[in-house]
């Protein structure tokens, strides 16, 4: 699959310095600035035909060799007419990593953004219902951050014991 048309449209609209591209095994990856991310996603959807958000996830680059930024939010888009795929990545940093929501563009982003918020604590401003989706509401940590210990911080044992006599 050739990506030249998409790349050409993107550079015409936003200029060559706004996006940074990489290609790996015919997989086009575009890294964009966080303040431009919504505009670029909107442009990709409305002008380049990427009508499906296949996945939305995040990566924590803490302790990653040669990483400059802490978090990467990854959007995997698909053009269902041509089968073209593109990966859009936005880098974020502490404190208060936040991005504009893309629920207005793809309704399916709703739960995926909630999951990213639940696991990494990345806020999506404008999200209609940004709550935890997997962890209990009382949970206070973001478990997929690399500085969170694998075994947790004692939350998993924070329940009362029911003795046989009282049950």
């Amino acid at each position: 699959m050739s990506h030249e048309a998409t790349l050409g449209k993107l550079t015409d609209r936003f200029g060559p310095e706004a996006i940074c591209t990489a290609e790996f095994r015919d997989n086009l990856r575009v890294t964009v600035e966080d303040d431009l991310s919504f505009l670029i996603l909107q442009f990709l959807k409305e002008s380049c035909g990427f009508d499906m958000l296949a996945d939305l996830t995040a990566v924590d680059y803490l302790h990653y060799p040669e990483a400059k930024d802490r978090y990467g939010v990854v959007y995997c888009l698909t053009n269902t007419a041509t089968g073209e795929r593109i990966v859009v990545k936005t880098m974020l940093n502490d404190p208060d990593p936040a991005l504009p929501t893309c629920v207005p563009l793809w309704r399916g982003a709703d739960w995926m953004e909630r999951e990213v918020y639940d696991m990494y604590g990345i806020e999506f401003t404008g999200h209609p219902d940004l709550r935890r989706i997997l962890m209990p509401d009382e949970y206070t940590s973001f478990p997929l951050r690399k500085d969170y210990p694998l075994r947790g911080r004692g939350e998993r044992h924070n329940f009362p014991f029911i003795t046989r006599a009282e049950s």
Partner: protein
Amino acid sequence: MAMTPNDSFLVSKLDWVANYCRANSLWPMPFATACCGIELMATASSRFDLARFGAEVMRFSPRQCDLMIVAGRVVMKMVPVMQRIWLQMPEPKWCISMGACASSGGVFDTYAVVQGIDRFLPVDVYVPGCPPRPEQLIQSIIDMQDKIKRTGTLLGSEFASRTTDEGPRALALEVLPQDAIVAPGDYRTATKTWERN
């Protein structure tokens, strides 16, 4: 033809009669959350046939059960549900912890998975295995019946004496005290700190 007393009376203890009835008609509550649940289903179906041991009546309402079989890993979010189901079961009731995960967390030593349900519930019989063979589960049912016959009482006084926490102690090196946080609020809920002493 006069009947001798030996022909017309059977002298027994009420405890024995109660145990005999209870042990031979266990009604399991399948609390199956993972692959152990598949083995549990196999145990109940025709090839292994748990009905031979009088424990085939799986009920999906805790109100009708007296043996909870926890089959599979239990995550932290599931603990209040499990405790609630346990509390909804009528007395007398027993609990089997089936498989490595339910008994100890198994390979899932992570923030979300409880390291053994016996930290939160009183367990009577543990079944090792990952997942256990149906024969092992059948053996645990037989052991359960044996335990009921040996220790059971009509009024359940053997339960009333189990007033202490029966699970293992927290692992000493699990998390340093200064790193521990206690999530606020309650999951039915959380009222004690993570340290169990």
